[in-house]
């Protein structure tokens, strides 16, 4: 009896959540129909791009719990590969995504392999350095156009459709955001995703459970790199010109902020965070210089008050949830697991 009522309530919640999701998607899809203001469309498109990047970084930071401070490097790799191949070798934009992804994966392996064996904070610094290296290379090589970068990148063509307006790219990135979000959701529930969550919550316990933590951490880093590179490849034709200035530490920092503000691991949180990070500075344009200061203060304050961000993924509360993550959807042990949750105190985050 009780069980049935609980189930009905859960189904109700699920239906409501589904309704909200559909409503948000429909409203977002209609934005270009509501305004023709190119400035708003530009901001909206930039927000979508940041969402894509944040969803990519979320796999590394939110799922696997590793801090990557050079994520813009993969974004740059995608953008530059597409930029160079499409202007100098006349590749189509779509085709140029593939070599971008390959280069990004190779770089991720080179950087990730030696670093991921160590404490996660080494990764933060090495990735930071990697970001700087990629930017330095972009500034100093002739092939990448030096400090001015690459311009006159041809438009994206899908079949016979040429995408060459803000509205067009808004929809391209709209599809990309949805694709990345679905991909992330599916990934999270997969064996890979569950392993990541275990590693994030307690690396030693994960190891004891037989998870090869080094391998899984490397996978997370590589997956992040792939999503970042794809976003970059589509970003290049959208802006038609790219320069090293767009791929510096401040860009990496914005992506980290999007993930950290929204909530580590939560897809909706991350997308919300990206929207805030993009729109907030536009709203406060008049304080041009002070806005990063305000941002920094907010970030520090947020980390003190809510270390996992505004809307974190439902936090793992205790041993039971941890074990549940390992087992997946098995129902057998659930009463035991609930008991385990109750006995093992949740990790206290605020004193």
């Amino acid at each position, binding site marked *: 009896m009780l069980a049935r009522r609980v189930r009905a309530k859960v189904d109700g919640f699920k239906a409501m959540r589904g309704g909200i999701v559909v409503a948000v998607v429909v409203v977002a899809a209609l934005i270009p129909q509501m305004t023709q203001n190119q400035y708003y469309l530009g901001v909206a498109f930039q927000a979508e791009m940041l969402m894509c990047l944040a969803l990519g970084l979320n796999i590394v930071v939110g799922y696997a719990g590793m801090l990557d401070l050079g994520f813009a490097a993969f974004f740059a790799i995608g953008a530059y590969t597409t930029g160079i191949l499409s202007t100098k070798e006349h590749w189509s934009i779509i085709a140029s995504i593939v070599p971008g992804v390959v280069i990004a994966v190779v770089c991720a392996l080179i950087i990730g392999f*030696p670093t991921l064996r160590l*404490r996660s904070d080494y990764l933060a610094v*090495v990735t930071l350095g990697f970001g700087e290296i990629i930017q330095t290379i972009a500034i100093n090589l002739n092939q990448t156009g030096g400090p001015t970068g690459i311009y006159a990148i041809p438009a994206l063509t899908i079949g016979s459709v040429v995408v060459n307006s803000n509205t067009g790219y808004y929809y391209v990135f709209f599809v990309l955001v949805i694709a990345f979000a679905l991909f992330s959701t599916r990934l999270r529930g997969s064996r890979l995703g569950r392993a990541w969550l275990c590693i994030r919550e307690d690396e030693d316990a994960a190891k004891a459970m037989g998870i090869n933590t080094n391998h899984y951490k490397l996978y997370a880093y590589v997956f992040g790199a792939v999503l970042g590179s794809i976003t970059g490849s589509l970003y290049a034709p959208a802006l038609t010109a790219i320069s090293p200035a767009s791929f510096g530490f401040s860009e990496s920092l914005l992506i980290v902020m999007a993930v950290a503000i929204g909530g580590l691991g939560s897809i909706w949180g991350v997308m919300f965070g990206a929207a805030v990070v993009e729109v907030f500075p536009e709203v406060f344009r008049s304080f041009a210089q002070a806005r*990063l*200061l305000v941002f920094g203060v907010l*970030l*520090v304050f947020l980390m003190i008050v809510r*270390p996992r961000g505004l809307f974190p993924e439902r936090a793992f509360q205790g041993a039971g949830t941890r074990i549940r993550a390992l087992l997946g959807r098995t129902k057998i042990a659930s009463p035991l697991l609930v008991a385990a949750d109750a006995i093992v105190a949740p990790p206290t985050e*605020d004193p």
Partner: protein
Amino acid sequence: MVSLLLNEIGNGIFLGAFFGLVALGYSMVYGILRLINFAHGDFYMVAAFVSYTILGAVLVGHSRGQWWTVLWVGILVMIITGGLAMLINQLVYRPMRRAAILSLMIAAIGLSQVLENGVLVTPNWGATYLVYPVTTPAAGFNLGSNHYTWGQLIIVLVSGLLALGVYFLVSRTLLGKAMRAVSEDRIAATLMGINVDLVIGIVFFIGGALAGAAAVMTGVYYGQIDYLMGFTVGLEAFTAAVLGGIGNIGGAVLGGLILGIVQSIGTGIFGAEWAIVVAFGALVLMLWFRPTGLLGERVARRM
């Protein structure tokens, strides 16, 4: 060729003296909190600006400062920066002592943004390069075909003395023993009656003070400062700390010297614009072959 190499090594030792001082601060904080304090490079930057303002005020009407003016301003700035580091620890890191390392690092990055942009929006500091009010005279001595000024020599000596001082503090005094105890096991240290928060605060103070000293010497030597100067130096100092073995006092200094020399030779070959690539190349190679650093203790991972 050999003399050219010797010159680069000479420059490298000089550069390494700066790296070593900043690296010491990184290394000590890491040793005690296991936290990479991303804001550390920015302590150094803030110190440069504070010393700029104080020296500017003190030296009104003088064309060039006396060495003792620079000395006492330097000491004052060390105290101010140390205090700032301690204050920041108290305000930000202390409330977060139980938070996940990821949240701590994100807070540290936010903090670094706050310091950089805070300096950026402060009147009279701002976004442009500032010319430091004191410079070193060009007089000096020749070694090989390179000319070294007395100022450079003094900088290397002062850095060495400060590093030695820290070494003695940590290895020979009761306070140092307390630091090592806290670093080893915070709970056990608390049970032994050590005031853990005070010890951590003092470590931040020392780290900040060393960064302050490095900043004054940078200003005097290079003659210009800007609000982003802490970012690169912070990265390089961290690299130095890892090269030498993070958490290890001697390692930080050794790592600083080695990184200075490697970077000097590297930029001699590839050009100055590749400096940061050389530094990070060295870091990644080091992590491949000897992740604990040159002098790093083989720390067993606690289960």
